[in-house]
C-alpha cells in the first residue's frame, strides 16, 4: 500500500489552555481521495482542515502532508503550502489586484515562474472555472459566485496535489451556490485530492469517497456516502443528519 498523502496521527490541539478543539484525530487520506467533513458548528471541522496547510498549529501528535511533517520549520511549511491549495468561505481575494494578478502572484513570487508563463496558465485556470472574460476586472466588480470561482482558480494555479475547501458556499447567495458546486464537482472528477468542509449534502453524496462527521473535536464517524447517509452507525450522526436534512 502506498504512503497516504495526508496522515493525522493522534493530533491534538487546544485554543488557549482550556478549549480542546481537536482530540486525538487520526486520519489517513490517500492521493486522489475526496473527503467531505461535516458536523455542527464549533465541532472543529474548519480547524481540522486549516491544520493541513499550517494555518493552525497543533500541540500534540503528528501531522504529515506530502512527506513533510508540519511543525516549526518555515521552509517545509512553505513547500507544503505550494502543494496544498485552499478556498475560503469569504473568498479572500486580494481586492487591490486584478483577477489575473490575483492568480499570478504566487506563481511569480512563490514558485519563481516568469510572468508570461504564469499568465498563460492563469488564463487556462480561468477558462477552467469559466470566467476568463473577467481576467482584467477587480474582484469587487464580480458577483460572489464569480469571486469564489476566481479563488478556486487562484488555488489551482500552483498545481496543488491537495485542495482544501472551508465552507466554500456558505457566504454565497443561494442562486450562486450551484455554479461553484459545478466547478468543484468537475474538479473532483479530475483526480485531485479534496478535503471539503461543507453542509452541501448533495455534493457530498455525489463526489465524496468518504464522509466524516466531527463533533466536539473528535471524528465520530467515517463512512462512504451511501452508508453515511442511509445507514449511519452513530447516534450523533443520525441526530446531525436529521437536523441538517430537516426531517
Amino acid at each position: 500500500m502506498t504512503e497516504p498523502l495526508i496522515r493525522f496521527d493522534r493530533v491534538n490541539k487546544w485554543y488557549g489552555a482550556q478549549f480542546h478543539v481537536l482530540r486525538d484525530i487520526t486520519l489517513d487520506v490517500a492521493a486522489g481521495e475526496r473527503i467531505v467533513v461535516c458536523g455542527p458548528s464549533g465541532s472543529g471541522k474548519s480547524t481540522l482542515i486549516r491544520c493541513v496547510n499550517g494555518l493552525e498549529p497543533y500541540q500534540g501528535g503528528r501531522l504529515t502532508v506530502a512527506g513533510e511533517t508540519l511543525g516549526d520549520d518555515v521552509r517545509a511549511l512553505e513547500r507544503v503550502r505550494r502543494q496544498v491549495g485552499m478556498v475560503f468561505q469569504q473568498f479572500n481575494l486580494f481586492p487591490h489586484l486584478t483577477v489575473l494578478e490575483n492568480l499570478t502572484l504566487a506563481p511569480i513570487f512563490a514558485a519563481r515562474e516568469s510572468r508570461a508563463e504564469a499568465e498563460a496558465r492563469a488564463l487556462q485556470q480561468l477558462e477552467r472555472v469559466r470566467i476568463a472574460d473577467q481576467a482584467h476586472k477587480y474582484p469587487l466588480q464580480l458577483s460572489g459566485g464569480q469571486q469564489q470561482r476566481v479563488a478556486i482558480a487562484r488555488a489551482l494555479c500552483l498545481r496543488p496535489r491537495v485542495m482544501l475547501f472551508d465552507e466554500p458556499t456558505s457566504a454565497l447567495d443561494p442562486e450562486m451556490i450551484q455554479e461553484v458546486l459545478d466547478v468543484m464537482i468537475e474538479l473532483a472528477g479530475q483526480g485531485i485530492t479534496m478535503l471539503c468542509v461543507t453542509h452541501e449534502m448533495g455534493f457530498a453524496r455525489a463526489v465524496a469517497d468518504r464522509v466524516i462527521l466531527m463533533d466536539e473535536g473528535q471524528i465520530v464517524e467515517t463512512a462512504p456516502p451511501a452508508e453515511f447517509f442511509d445507514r449511519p452507525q452513530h447516534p450523533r450522526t443520525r441526530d446531525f443528519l436529521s437536523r441538517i436534512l430537516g426531517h
Partner: protein
Amino acid sequence: MAIAQAPIAARPAPPVPQGGRGAWVWARRELFGSALSSASTLLALGLLIWLGWGLLRWGLLNAVFGADLPACQAARGQGACWGVLAEKGRLVLFGRYPLAEQWRAEAATALLLALIGASGLRRCWRPWLLPLWIAGLALVFALLRGGVAGLSGVATDLWGGLPLTLLLATLGIALAFPLAVALALGRRSELPAIRTLCVLYIELLRGVPLISLLFMASFLFPLFLPVGQTPDVLLRVLAGIALFAAAYLAETVRGGLQAIPRGQVEAAQSLGLGWWVIQRRVVLPQALALVVPGIMNSFIGVFKDTSLVTIVSLYELTGALGLALNSDADWRPFMLEGYLFIAAIYFAGCFTMSRYSLWVEARLARSRAR
C-alpha cells in the same frame, strides 16, 4: 371587493421636487427668506465689504512696493510695506548663503522643486525615479556645498532659507517613511524582542517635543563623540527630524495595517508566499492606501516643523526672516509683511500637498471600483 391594480410601470413617476433654479432664485430663498435672514445677510455682507476694503487699502492701494524706507515709514499704519521684501527678500529666501554664490542656491532650489514635481506625476513612477533622485540630490549637495568642479566651498551652517527648508522637508520625509513602515511592521511582529524595541522607540520619540530632540542632536550628541568626529550639524538635525517624524508616521501606518482582514494574510500564506512578499504585495499596498490622508497629514507636519531648526542656528525660511529683520532697526517694524510672505510660501506648499493627497485618494478609489 376587487381592487383594480394598475401595472407598476404604467404609473407616472412622481416629479422630483423642484425648488427653482438659478443663483437669483437660490439667493432669494436661502439669504432673504425671512426678515431675520435678510438682516443677517446684510450684516455679514457689510462686514465682508468693510474687511475686504480695509485689506485692499492696506495691501494694495496705500502700500509701498519699492525699497523706499522713508515712504514705508510714512505709510505705517495705513499701508503695507512690501518694499521690505525688495530690500530683504534675498536674505529671507537664501539666508546667509554668500551673495556671490547665490546662483548656486537658486539652481539647487529649482532642481529640488523639479524633482519633487516630477515625482508627483504618474508617468514618472518608473524604476528610474530612485536613481534620478539620488543623482539629483547629489547635484543639489554639490551645488550648495561646493568644493568640487571649481565651486568654492560653503559650510552647511551658512545654508539657509528656502533651499534649506525644502531639503530638510524632502529628506526628512524620504527617510522617515521607510523607517515608519518598518516600525509599524515591527510593532506587529510575532517576535517579542522586535515588538518591544519598536514600541519603546515609538513611545519614547513621541514622548518628547521635537525641539528637545533638535537640542540633543545639536548640542548634546557631540559631547559623546571624540572631538573632530562629530557629523555635520545639518545631518544631525536631519536625523532628528526624520527619527521624530517616523514615530508619528509609524502609528498612522499601523492603523492601516490593523484594518486589513486576517483572511488576506491567510490567503497569501496558503499560497506559499513568504512573510516579505505578503507584506510587500498584499498587506502594505492595501494598508497604505487606507491611510493616505493620515500620511499626508504627517508630511505636512514635517514640512512645517522644519521651521524649528532655527533654534539650533540653522536659518531656514522662518529663521532667515528673523535674521534678515532683527538685526536691522530700520526695517524691523515691517516684520508682519515678511511673515505674510513666508506664510504664503508655506501655504502654497501645504495646499499643494493636500490637493495632491486628494488626487491620490481619488485615483486609488478608481482602481478599487466596486
